Each structure stands twice: as C-alpha cells, then as structure tokens.
C-alpha cells in the first residue's frame, strides 16, 4: 500500500459548520470571490453541469408533449397552493385513516423537537436517513446529535458530505465539489471501516459505501426521510431515488418519520402521472429514476409498522404571502436550473451559503427568511438580501424549469423587496444604483438597450478600465473602478451562443 506523505487531510467546506443551514456565511459577492478562486471546483462543476444538461436535453426532446406536461405541472402546483388549507387537512385525514400520525411544525426548532421526541420515545440511538432537503434545511442531524442520536446519511453523496463535515453544494449531486481522490481520502480517514488500499475508482468507492451502509440498514430501527410528493386524496407519500438506499430506509426499519414541506402536497393520484414524467427527466436526465417508492400510512406485514408525517412551515407561509414570489414553492427540486445557470457554473453551490443553492435558492432562501419584511434581512450587502442579485437574468433557468417557475421575474421582484424594506429608510448609494439596475433589469427591452449602450461605451473605451461613470453609475465608481466593459452585451452574447 502506498502512502501519500504530506497529503493534507481533506478540510471541510465551508471551513466552519454553519449555525443555520438555510443561510450562512458572507454576502454572495464575497462568498463567490472565494469559491471562484478554486480552479478544481470550477473544472468539476463545468463537466458535471454540462453532462447533466446534455442528458436532460436529450430525454426531454423525446416526449412530444413535454411542453404540455410543463403547463400541467405548473397549473397543478398553482392550484394546489390556492387550495393548500383544504389539501393539508385532507392529507392529514387520509394518512390518519391509514394508521399514520400527522404532526405540524411551524419552524425548524419545532420540527426538530417533534422528530427528536419520536426517536427518543422509540429508544433508538441511531437512525438511517434518506437524502432530504427539508431535514437539511432545519438542521435535523445536528439537533439529533445534541440529543445523543446518531443520524446516518445513506445517499452516497450525502454520506461523503457528512463524513467530510461539508455542506452540500448541489441539490441533486451534493458532493459535486469533491473529486474522486478527495472522496477516497474522506472514506479512508473518516468511514471507520474502509477497506485497506481503497482506490479512487468510482466503482470501488461505491462498493465501499455499500458494505459500510449495509450493516447499518440491517440493524436500523428508525428511518427518517423527506418526500417528493404526497397525495391529499389518498395519503400516499412518494420518494424518488437511484441507489436503493431510499428503499432500504423506507422498508426495513420498524418506524419511519417523514419530514415534508407543506408545499409538496398534490391533490390527486392522477397528478403523479405528470410529476413522475417531469421530475426524472429534468433531474438526472433519465427516462425514469431507478427506484420510486410510494406508501400510504402503514401496511400490515410490509414495511414500517409505525409512520409519522411532519408537515413543515419554516417560512413557507411567508413565501406564500408574496403573490409573485410564491411560485418558488412550486419547485420540485429537480436542480435543472442549477445545471443551466452560468453564475452557478462558475461560483458553485457554496457561494450561495444555503442548502438551497443556484437560481431556485436565490429566490427561495430570501423568501423563507422574510427578505424586506419589517425586521427581516434587507439590502444588497446583507448575506440574504444579496442572493436575488446573484444572477445575470439570462433566463436559462426559466426555460429549463419543468414547472415553469419564472425565476428571472421573481429575482427582479425580490431585488426590489430587498432594497425597499418598509418603514423610514434613507437609501444608501448602492441602494440607489441597485434600484436603477433593478428597474433596468426588470425589463427585457431596457436591459437589451442598456446592454447595447454598455457595449458601445466598451468599444469607445477600447477595453480600458473606467474610473468614472455619470450618475447613477457615479455612486458606484466613487468607491471602485467600473469593470472593463465588454464589447458585446451579455444578452447579445447569450443569444449568439444559444444559436449554436
């Protein structure tokens, strides 16, 4: 066995564990500054996002009713939101009628308390977990750890992230920021039962994880999962996955706890036919993901005999109150918008400082945290308030989104909200220039004209740095040089690029 002398042990990313997984770290521009310096990360990201993007394009082109499916998906989600109180109470009734127990949790702390209580009651010291954004958002693993309960992530990428002490950087491929050599290091040093002489071959790494987790699945008493959707009419919950770790967790333990955002409810079983086509094709670019599990309450003699469903608010009702912003709640977490986003491709997920990175994160996180609300985070320099500015408004996310969330419109709207918190407020220089920018950016036409104007000035200045701009740009150049101007606007560049 060869040893790599001097090879530094893998450092966690970010270097300090966040207090709130929903929003941690510096403002987007500052955090992006750091991640942009990581050449390895950018190379990983480029390959990864391009690969998934191409696959997605191929399998969505295969269906001649893809656009109609997107329309139906968007309409079902909008109609579900409009009937949310009825659907949630109906879901509660159906689940209860089939032997499940439903809990309501207003915020992260309450959800953690409920889940911890259930696990304690069951007398378990260890639980197995299926990848779930909701439980990451509320920091459930940390809450369980404080109660002396060991939560084991069983999705390969999540396990890598967990063992490394990282935060996930992509919704679908959370360890996209780690390459195979780093993963080998992480397994060798942190797994405890890694095989001797483990190589960095992806197959060998996956098999090491299989062996490592198998023992834990077989002895698990309690499992914790998220949900991709739940059907109000029947009480059916669905989890979509690839590796089979989901099936293990949903089948073998005696007790199952599912934590689900209230926006995941769908009215009828028929709706499954839409989302089971939209989700896998948009997400991994497959016609269907390897495994989808559905269960309704408790089935005697098959699977967990005790089932708890925790319905989570944690800021969702805040988002719901914003008529334009609420469409962020339609998100089915496919991650297509991340994979097409030019900003995400360069900065990576950690720059967004949230379990929800990329374009969807830029509109969801600020709303969950109440951006621009009285006492809420606000301003382009605030970590949360800066998120809606993390975009070029190119529109690629909107085109890719299987439920047609108008992310660019929501971004512009949230920029306004972030810069205009209610109450007496003297606007700062940045606020004013950002507000003008927001106005220009909110209109496709104005943006194209502004782009052309910039390109014109760019040609006139011949690529030299600009030390001074006329008002309102002067508010910006007073404290820094304007960037060297491109000779072609982004919109024009993007239009040409997309034609290829």
């Amino acid at each position: 066995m060869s040893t790599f002398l001097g090879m530094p042990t893998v450092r966690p990313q970010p270097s300090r564990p966040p207090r709130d997984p929903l929003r941690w770290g510096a403002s987007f521009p500052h955090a992006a500054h750091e991640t942009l310096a990581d050449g390895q990360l950018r190379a990983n990201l480029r390959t990864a996002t391009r690969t998934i993007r191409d696959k997605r394009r191929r399998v969505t082109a295969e269906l001649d009713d893809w656009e109609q499916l997107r329309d139906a998906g968007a309409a079902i989600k909008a109609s579900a939101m409009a009937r949310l109180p009825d659907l949630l109470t109906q879901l509660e009734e159906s689940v209860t009628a089939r032997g499940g127990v439903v809990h309501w949790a207003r915020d992260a702390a309450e959800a953690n308390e409920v889940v911890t209580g259930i696990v304690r009651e069951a007398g378990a010291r260890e639980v197995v977990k299926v990848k779930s954004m909701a439980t990451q958002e509320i920091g459930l693993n940390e809450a369980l750890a404080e109660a002396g309960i060991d939560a084991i992530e069983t999705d390969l990428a999540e396990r890598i992230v967990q063992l490394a002490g990282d935060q996930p950087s992509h919704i679908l491929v959370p360890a996209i920021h780690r390459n195979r050599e780093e993963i080998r290091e992480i397994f060798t040093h942190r797994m405890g039962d890694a095989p001797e002489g483990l190589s960095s071959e992806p197959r060998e790494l996956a098999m090491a994880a299989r062996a490592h987790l198998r023992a834990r699945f077989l002895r698990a008493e309690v499992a914790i999962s998220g949900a991709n959707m739940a059907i109000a009419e029947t009480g059916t919950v669905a989890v979509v996955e690839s590796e089979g770790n989901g099936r293990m967790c949903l089948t073998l333990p005696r007790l199952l706890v599912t934590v689900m955002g209230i926006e995941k409810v769908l009215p009828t079983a028929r709706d499954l036919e839409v989302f089971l086509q939209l989700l896998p094709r948009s997400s991994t670019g497959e016609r269907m993901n390897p495994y989808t599990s559905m269960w309704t309450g408790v089935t005697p003699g098959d699977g967990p005999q005790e089932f708890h469903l925790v319905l989570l608010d944690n800021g969702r009702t805040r988002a719901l109150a914003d008529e334009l912003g609420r469409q962020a709640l339609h998100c089915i977490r496919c991650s297509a918008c991340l994979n097409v986003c030019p900003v995400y491709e360069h900065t990576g997920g950690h720059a967004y400082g949230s379990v929800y990175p990329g374009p969807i994160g830029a509109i969801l996180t600020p709303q969950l945290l109440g951006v621009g609300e009285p006492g809420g985070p606000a301003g382009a320099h605030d970590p949360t308030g800066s998120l809606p500015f993390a975009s070029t408004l190119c529109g690629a996310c909107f085109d890719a989104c299987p439920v047609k969330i108008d992310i660019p419109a929501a971004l512009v709207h949230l920029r306004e909200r972030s810069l205009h918190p209610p109450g007496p407020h003297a606007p700062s220089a940045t606020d004013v220039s950002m507000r003008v920018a927001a106005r220009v950016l909110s209109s496709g036409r104005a943006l194209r004209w502004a782009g052309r104007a910039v390109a014109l000035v760019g040609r006139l200045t011949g690529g030299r740095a600009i030390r001074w701009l006329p008002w309102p740009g002067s508010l910006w150049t007073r404290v820094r040089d304007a960037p060297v101007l491109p000779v072609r606007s982004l919109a024009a560049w993007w239009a040409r690029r997309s034609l290829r």
Partner: protein
Amino acid sequence: MTAPSTARAEMLGRIRRALGQSRSVEVERHYHRTGALVAGSGEVLDLLAERLEDYRATVVRTDASAVPRVVADLLDVPSVAVPDGVPAPWLAELTAEVRRDEPALTHAELDDTAAVLTTCRVAIAETGTVVLDGGPGQGRRALTLLPDRHVVVVEADQVVHSVPDAIARLDVTRPLTWISGPSATSDVELVRVEGVHGPRDLRVVLVDG
C-alpha cells in the same frame, strides 16, 4: 413542548392569511392522457425490452411454455426467495433452494438469499419500468430488496405504453415500488456505477404468447 393543536391552527391560519383573495386555478391537461401504443402489442413489448436494456437490465423474451426453463437458467444461484402467488409450474426446473416467506424470513436470512423471483403489477414501455404493488407473486417489499438478483416475470398484457397508462391501472394506496433498471449512482464525478444498495442484477422475463 407546545400543544400540537396550536401549531396546526396557527399554520392553517397563516396559510389562509397568506392566500387572501387568491383565486382558484383551473388545471388543463393537454398532455397525452393515454399512450399511442396498444397495451400488450408487439411494438410495446419491443419498446420495453429496448428501454430496459438501455438501463443494462437483462431481458429474455419467451413464450409461456418455456418460462420454467428460462427462470431456472436465470436463477443459477444457491438460493431464491419465492413469494406466495408465483405459479408453481415456474419452479419446476429450479435447482436453487426455494425459500418461502412463511413464516416471514428475517432481514438477515433475506440478506443471505442470493435471488428473488416475482411477478409484477404493470410495466411501462416508454420508461423501461416494472411496478410491484405487493399483490400475488410479488411479496412484501423487503423480499425484492435484499437479495442481490431480482428475476421478474412480465406478461404481455401487463405492459402499457406510458406513465399515465400505468397510473390508470394502479391503486396507489398499495405499497408501490417502481423499478427502472438496477440501482445506480453517479455521485462520484458523475461516473455511473450500477448496483449500489438495491439488487445489483435485474433480469426481466418478458412472456409473449
């Protein structure tokens, strides 16, 4: 701990306030509600076989009389779990030790069983999917999860074209497992590795005639 009813009432109140006067939304479904290909037709079987092979599942096409032979060939292992409801003639030529789930096999016993033989509820050609619903010949979910090889027999009239066709046939309140190829991961540098936690080896017997 706060009273659970408080949380419920408060959340529902918040939602109602947030929605305010929002109007209801009509859902129009202009996508294909039924597949173009006829269930059980030669075309639909061809499509299913092609899509399953795309996922690197093994597909064997046969007529009903040869099922025992084919099943025995695919189950060249020491032991096989067989749920209630699998037609007895299918087992006629098996050399593997047959393990019944009566009394229920423990997880350790299942983990130690090399393969499982089942029927299915419906199969979707367009997506290469086999759906189990725990009905006759399919057993409880753990049975098709722990053994490393899953041999599933699909009869022609169970094969539909599209996802909506399948939903129309299913009772979603039964425990459902949709299987599209062997388990897989792409978590290490997006390199696809087949076979992680579920059965690493999926073999589909497609019976026509």
